[in-house]
């Protein structure tokens, strides 16, 4: 996220340079789509909302307050668009969705035994994440995927940095606890 570059692109867009906007789209579409596809159940919904987010960004760009960094602004629009579209989109991820989740490289963990175990259970963990309360899930994903600070996440969600931190903390605790429960039950069987 390059703030200076973003601001130049915003400025140029507002001067009528559509290519500058196209560049903004190129640099943010992957991140926004990634976020939205994890928040929604269907790829088509995620793509559609992504498009809608960028159209809103464009139409409202003149109101963008440069006190905000562009990246928090666009995520805030994404979160809000998602909320307003929530009624329309498919909610529950189905079997197909989980079946199509690609395998992660095992390198995510330094400990091979655990990496192996978790890889086996990855669909279960993703289901646990999906079952989190929406605001916790949003905060968790923003934190993990973008390395946003607590105060930036607070800005995106319209809450205080402390509240954002708390949500992320809760989300992480829940995921771990639920996974532990799952693992315990597996043992008994």
């Amino acid at each position: 996220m390059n703030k200076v570059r973003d601001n130049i692109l915003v400025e140029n867009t507002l001067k009528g340079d559509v290519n500058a906007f196209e560049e903004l789209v190129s640099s943010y579409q992957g991140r926004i789509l990634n976020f939205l596809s994890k928040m929604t159940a269907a790829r088509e919904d995620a793509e559609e909302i992504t498009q809608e987010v960028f159209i809103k960004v464009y139409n409202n760009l003149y109101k963008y307050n440069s006190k905000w960094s562009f990246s928090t602004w666009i995520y805030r629009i994404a979160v809000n668009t998602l909320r307003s579209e929530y009624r329309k989109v498919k909610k529950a991820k189905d079997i197909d969705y989980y079946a199509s989740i690609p395998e992660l490289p095992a390198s995510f963990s330094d400990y091979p035994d655990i990496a192996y175990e978790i890889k086996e259970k990855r669909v279960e963990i993703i289901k646990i994440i999906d079952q989190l309360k929406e605001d916790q899930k949003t905060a968790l994903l923003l934190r993990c995927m973008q390395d946003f600070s607590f105060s930036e996440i607070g800005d995106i969600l319209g809450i205080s940095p402390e509240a954002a931190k708390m949500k992320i903390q809760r989300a992480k605790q829940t995921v771990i606890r639920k996974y532990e429960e799952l693992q315990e039950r597996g043992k008994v069987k």
Partner: protein
Amino acid sequence: MKCNLSLEDIIKYTENQLSDEDNKRIREHLQSCEKCRRQYGVLNFTESYAKESIPVSESVKKNIMEAIDVSRYSKEKKFLGGRLNRAMPVIKPVLAAAAVFVLVFSVATNYDNLRGLVSNNGSVGGVISSPGISPQNTNAGLATPDATDSETQQPVEKKTITVYYGNSNADGVVAEKREVEVGKESQIERVIFEELQKTPKTDGLHSTIPTGTKLISVVTDGGICTLDLSKEFVDNSPGGTAGEAMTLYSIINSLTELPDINKVQFMIEGQKQEVYIHAVFDEPFGRNEGIIKTQDVNATDITEESLKNLEENNKNSIQAIKEKDMKKLAEIVHPVKGVRFSAYSHIDTGSDLVFTKEQLPSLLESEVVYAWGAYDGTGDPIKLTFAQYYDKFVYDRDFAKAEKVGFNKIQQEGNTIVNIKEVYPEGKFFDFYFSGFNPDYEGLDWASLRLVFEEYNGQWYLVCIAHGQWTI
């Protein structure tokens, strides 16, 4: 095996929030504790899952670029939305005496001719550089002056300029609007510079130009305004980094209010200097919005009696609005300016509707469908009768019982620019604010109703009812 680590420790470990020593302790512990290793692993997995990107199909960008109006911000198209946020408060032709309107318009048109500019030049970026003076709410279909009017050259024109003076804390500059006369032969840049040397109208502000400074020449070319100043500018500078910054940005910000100036280059007696006193001086300076302050809202620029009248009228307004008593409300509406209705925080002098106090009483019964600007986000026109608009964008919450009422201070800004102070620099406003209704929304459903008042013949009158909410 005994485990004395908490889940919090593991979380902090993954977030790199611990000291080196603690990190080491945990790393060692993980070797031997499967439970903690598992917790750590789940957190690692969550992070990689979140980061793992998915390919974006080409069609996403294609669809976006096809859906947007590519000429929305182009020079050719007059986009009224965001331009000239800080344009002078424009009087709506609907209610202004026609003569006043014609005057304002023709002056501005002359200004354009004079400077060889098109009125809607490309400076749409109201956020960063805001052009100063040209009217924008020339609603189609309303009386526009004869073309011949605008071609008539007048020897002296009246113009509104925005100049920035130093504040008393010496940490910022504050805008003041002035009406000045610009002769046919004189340069607007010079007029602004001379204005900056005068004593400001507002208490607590001061001129930042070192005494005795003379403006030798001024030339604007390619967006850069070059000022050649006499040596007093350096010799009599009060010194200090802060004072210096105020001097420079008082000049730079005032000049960059002009639509065709983006940067300012300083010269001293015909020479470029490497440094002023502290600041690097051999390159042109851009505008600095950060240094602009607003006047202290509680400054004693209003007498106790006047304040009482303001508060009284505010109380009566919100009550009348709640009771839908338009007759009562009309009594408080500005007799000349009428009252503007703004659907969103960002007041749009181009598309917001303004009604006179005479029109107001019968409006709730009116069947006429008005265009109230555009819905935030979609950009679709808001087409509603007055009564429908009222329920949606005026009194959609019980603002009379607001959680908080701010005076001249915005309670919640959202991510759009609240431009009340730019549009109504002389006005005072009350912000009736709710922080949110549904706890699930975490405050994203905050709502505000802002009532803006202006003084006229010693009384405070309602000039704007602006609705604020998180929208896009």
